[in-house]
């Protein structure tokens, strides 16, 4: 489903003011599912600076735009493990679409964009990380053909 008027493109430094609030919302959302994901008091400027560093260090950042307004965003990292046959993969770390723009396939298109990066770096695996208890994300990625791959267990002291 391709919604007319939705533009998906790479994030530039001058987009970061519009992107930062979406990142904050992404973490606030995940906080709902697991207190271990509780966020700090997040200042948009602080978030913006982190994003800038990550953009410069080679992370993949895409945004969705409607009539010049940023309505969705995705950040992925390139992860390496030299011991594995598949020694590189793209890992989606953050993905958020504003509520009023959901159910239009925007998140799916952002993911497709990240998927295109695989070929460029010679990787075959696209991964997504989110809190285990986030059932919304769990359902969403399963629907897009993702499967369980890595488990992270924590013990709080």
């Amino acid at each position, binding site marked *: 489903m391709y919604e007319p008027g939705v533009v998906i493109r790479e994030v530039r430094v001058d987009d970061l003011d519009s992107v930062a609030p979406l990142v904050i*919302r992404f973490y*606030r*959302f995940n906080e*709902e599912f697991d207190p271990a994901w509780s966020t700090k008091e997040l200042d948009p400027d602080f978030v913006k600076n982190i994003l800038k560093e990550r953009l410069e260090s080679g992370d993949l950042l895409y945004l969705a735009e409607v009539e010049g307004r940023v309505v969705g965003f995705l950040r992925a990292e390139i992860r390496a493990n030299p011991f594995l046959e598949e020694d590189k993969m793209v890992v989606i770390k953050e993905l958020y679409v*504003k*509520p*009023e723009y*959901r159910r239009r396939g925007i998140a799916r298109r952002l993911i497709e964009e990240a998927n295109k990066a695989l070929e460029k770096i010679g990787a075959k695996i696209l991964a997504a990380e989110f809190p285990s208890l986030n059932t*919304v994300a769990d359902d969403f990625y399963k629907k897009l053909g993702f499967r369980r791959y890595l488990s992270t267990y924590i013990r709080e002291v």
Partner: protein
Amino acid sequence: MSEKKEIDWYSLSLRLHKFYEGKIETIPKVPVRRLNDFAIWYTPGVAEPSRQISKNPEESFEYTSRWNTIAVVSDGTRVLGLGKVGPEAAYPVMEGKALIFKFLGGVDAIPLVHRARDPEKFLELLELIEPSFGGINLEDIESPKCFYILEEARKRLSIPVWHDDQQGTASVTLAGLINASILTNRDLKKSRIVLFGAGAANIALYRILKAYGVPAENIVVLDSKGVLHPDRDDIDKLMISHPWKYKIAIETKGGGLKPGAGPAEALEGADILVAASKPGPGTIKKEWISKMARDPIVFAEANPVPEIWPWEAKEAGAKIVATGRSDFPNQVNNSLIFPAMFRGVLDVRAKTITDEMAIAAAEAVAEYARLKGINEDYILPTMEEWEVYPRVAAAVATKAVEQGLARRTTTYNEELERAKEIIGRTREKYLKLWESGLIPKPPVDYEER
């Protein structure tokens, strides 16, 4: 209101509940002249209707009292303003509802209180008891569980399911809004409507207003944290914890207001306010109403004390004020709808109650008031005007037939006559019992005014 002496309804009620030991009982409606008659109504004769129904379960609506019997179901999680009082404590309330169903609608209603608080268990219970009943009236269930249970029950059951706190209040409110709009020369479908409070009544009203033809963007809904808005801080949390509020926020786009807007901003220039929130006075402020559009309409439905006193609302400029109270003009009273709603759907053996049927009921109530002559202090009929009930029943029944959701067909006039006959006969039977003294006189009473 110039009250001489406040009646102590609580102690009177307690005393009389004990005296009468409950409020309803079952009474045969077939000839029992001699012992042999039981061979018709019970064994061996009853085996034949049983065989017929076994071949076709739908015949249970023809050969048994199922067609006119509903369950008044509650888990006791939100009883009146009392909260989670438990199923046993909900019983007298359900029994009271059953009394009104019978008296005003000729509907046989059975109180059914239970311990299935878990929504899935609750739904399973409804599915399991469906064969006994022609309809289900849900009552006094906490929010937001009540939305899920009603939605799911409507899907899973092939008999009408109604939650009075949602559809009942919403329908009678719509009836009042239709007439109030006429009196203030408004097009309801083009009015800006503010719903204050996002509980069962207003969330259902939102849905019914949309079905009536009001665009979602004309509506603003506020909960205790302010306007339901797609950019609200807790919006993603709502998606999980309260999808109904979430949906409203998205569809209304927060009425074009800023994310943090409160009632003062929401009411600026608004045509209509429907408050169904927490008891006042002072929940709604006069200053907010004074900023509304010309001749604004204010419904303050909280009980026992409305969100704002009617005279305060009027002083602030409200043209028409309605409340939930019988001692003020324009009482928004569910009892105007639910007995007749079920009379109508039961008479055509309807499979469900749609929002369109609720709207038909609201329009019938509004039309009846217009025939009597509406004015600022009379936008809705009162419970004493029982001629309204057959009209509502007829409107609902014909809508059910029109929508292809009735097991039996009928016409408006046919149902009007049938409803009059059934309700009239119930009253006559009751009056005979009362006049004969078989229903004893109350040992204590209140002074009639």
